[in-house]
């Protein structure tokens, strides 16, 4: 089975501060990390590799600096790594990004694609599902557990707030990984050595992908998103939790609604 894991290099938001005047992110000097959900995607792929001997390829679209994120994926145990990078891809929104990544994935060939649920810098959760749509394959988002079953089929648990669904899918397919899916392994010493000494990060440019994606669907030109306004997320106070029986719960809710003049 050939697995492709899509990863994104993001600023470590634990280290990011907001400019109090403009409300924008101060990215200077902030370390870059692999997006946490994507780390779980890598781990899920490597667990399938450990059990069934799959071939795991990590792929990212980004500037040349994203090389180090792919080296980290190689050092964790991925077999191959591709950096999709070209000036022509610059300024891409999620649509152009997913068009480009889908083209690269099509070129490389795959049975299973794993992406993180969403990236901590943009929080859109769009790129994974869009890749599946571009490729016309089934997808299961918000995976909290993946099990391989007979043939090319997988049973995936899709998480909801209060329950989960068990969904059986047949590859080729795409799964988006939640952080609750697993605990990502560390790199290993031998892995770091091989990430630089024996393995390589291969470059894919527009020239390599032009048979699979049209020029008008990539980069700034291929990005229909228009940003109206950006603002920092307002942190709301935590809600109050009451552990009471139904009758008391009704009373509390009605009282609150009256306090806020809803009733």
């Amino acid at each position, binding site marked *: 089975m050939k697995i492709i894991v899509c990863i994104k290099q993001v600023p470590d938001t634990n280290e990011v501060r907001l400019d109090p005047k403009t409300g924008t992110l101060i990215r200077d000097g902030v370390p870059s990390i692999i997006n946490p959900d994507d780390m779980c995607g890598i781990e899920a792929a490597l667990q399938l590799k450990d059990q069934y001997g799959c071939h795991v390829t990590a792929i990212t679209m980004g500037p040349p600096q994203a090389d*180090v994120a792919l080296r*980290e994926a190689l050092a964790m145990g991925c077999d191959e790594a591709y950096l999709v990078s070209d000036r022509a891809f610059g300024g891409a929104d999620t649509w152009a990004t997913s068009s480009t990544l889908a083209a690269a994935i099509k070129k490389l060939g795959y049975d299973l694609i794993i992406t993180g649920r969403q990236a901590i810098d943009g929080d859109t959760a769009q790129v994974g599902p869009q890749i599946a749509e571009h490729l016309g394959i089934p997808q299961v988002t918000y995976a909290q557990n993946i099990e391989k079953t007979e043939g090319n089929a997988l049973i995936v648990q899709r998480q909801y707030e209060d329950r989960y669904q068990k969904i059986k899918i047949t590859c080729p397919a795409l799964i988006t990984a939640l952080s609750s899916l697993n605990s990502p392994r*560390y790199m*290993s*010493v031998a892995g770091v050595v091989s990430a630089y000494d024996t393995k390589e990060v291969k470059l894919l440019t527009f020239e390599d992908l032009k048979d699979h994606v049209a020029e008008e669907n990539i980069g700034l030109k291929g990005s229909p998103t228009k940003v109206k306004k950006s603002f920092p997320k307002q942190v709301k106070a935590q809600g109050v939790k009451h552990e009471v029986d139904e009758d008391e719960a009704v009373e509390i809710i009605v009282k609150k609604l009256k306090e806020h003049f809803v009733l």
Partner: protein
Amino acid sequence: MDFNLSKKHLLMQELFRQFAEKEVKPLAAETDEKEAFPYSTVEKLGKYGMLGIPWSADSLSYIMCVEEMSKVCATTGVIVSAHTSLCAAPISDWGTQEQKDRYLPNLTSGKWLGALGLTEAGAGTDAAGQQTKAVLDGDNYILNGTKIFITNADAAHVYIIIAMTDKSQGTRGLSAFIVEKDMPGFSIGKKEEKMGIRGSLTCELIMENCIVPKANLLGKEGEGFKVAMKTLDGGRIGIAAQALGIAQGAIDVTVDYVKERKQFGKRISQFQNTQFELADMQTTVDAARLLTYRAACLKDAGKKYTSEAAMAKLFASEAASDVARRCLQLFGGYGYIREYPIERMMRDAKITELYEGTSEVQKMVIAAGMKVN
């Protein structure tokens, strides 16, 4: 001359930092408080390849590992250092093919932990005064004697033991042996209670008619002193790295503290005394790092590094004690309380000036290298 780490070494450092932060730091206080050898951490160190780094990567990566572990837990730092430098390294350097095949894979994978038995009650700095004897009897050597202050002792499976095979030859009558824990006549003696690095197991090794196969002689008969001295050259880079880690770790926790703590209506980081103290200490620690990395790079290049290793250990260990003490001063009274890790760091730092050669021994080595005698 290039002072920059390569991309590979930067990623290696990132691995050690992630591991130290998530696996080692949370256990450090308890390891110290309960004198609890961190067996579970050692198993994980083995799993990720951190107990055989010079063989899968290089010495620079190895000392960066000791440095990063020691920043958060000096006990974990010395476990890695003693195992790698004092046991696996001499087998790799002096062992026969059969010895390497039997011991190295088990040591570098972490299946077996290693230790070195050199020090005796009457033979510390004067390592030539060894009383432990080894007598050839058919296919075996029979060892008798007691080693003291042995790091990793009870947790280890393999020991390099230095013993006298020919007293009339002085240091040239010493030989090195590879001894396994379950060999007949071998036992672990008293466990020491220590001021610092309290989680590391420091015990006596007792050999009473201990039967060691002739095939376990490491190097030739009479080469034991050479084996020990060369082993300590490598070990000193490891201890320099441990000291460097303790010192940097002390600065790191102090920087966090002074930015939070307020006195006289200001954060204490705003006082010039705090700034000057920390600037001075970081400069010293950077100098220690350069000395330590230089010694490791010389070793990796296959060049002589005896003096450079001694300089690194001398400077880094004295820096560690000095920096930890001054950092504690910046904490004020809180520094003396166990709620903060700085008092542990100050206790841990002292040992680096003592073991694998005291600071005075390092000066003897450096002076000898300068041909001053």
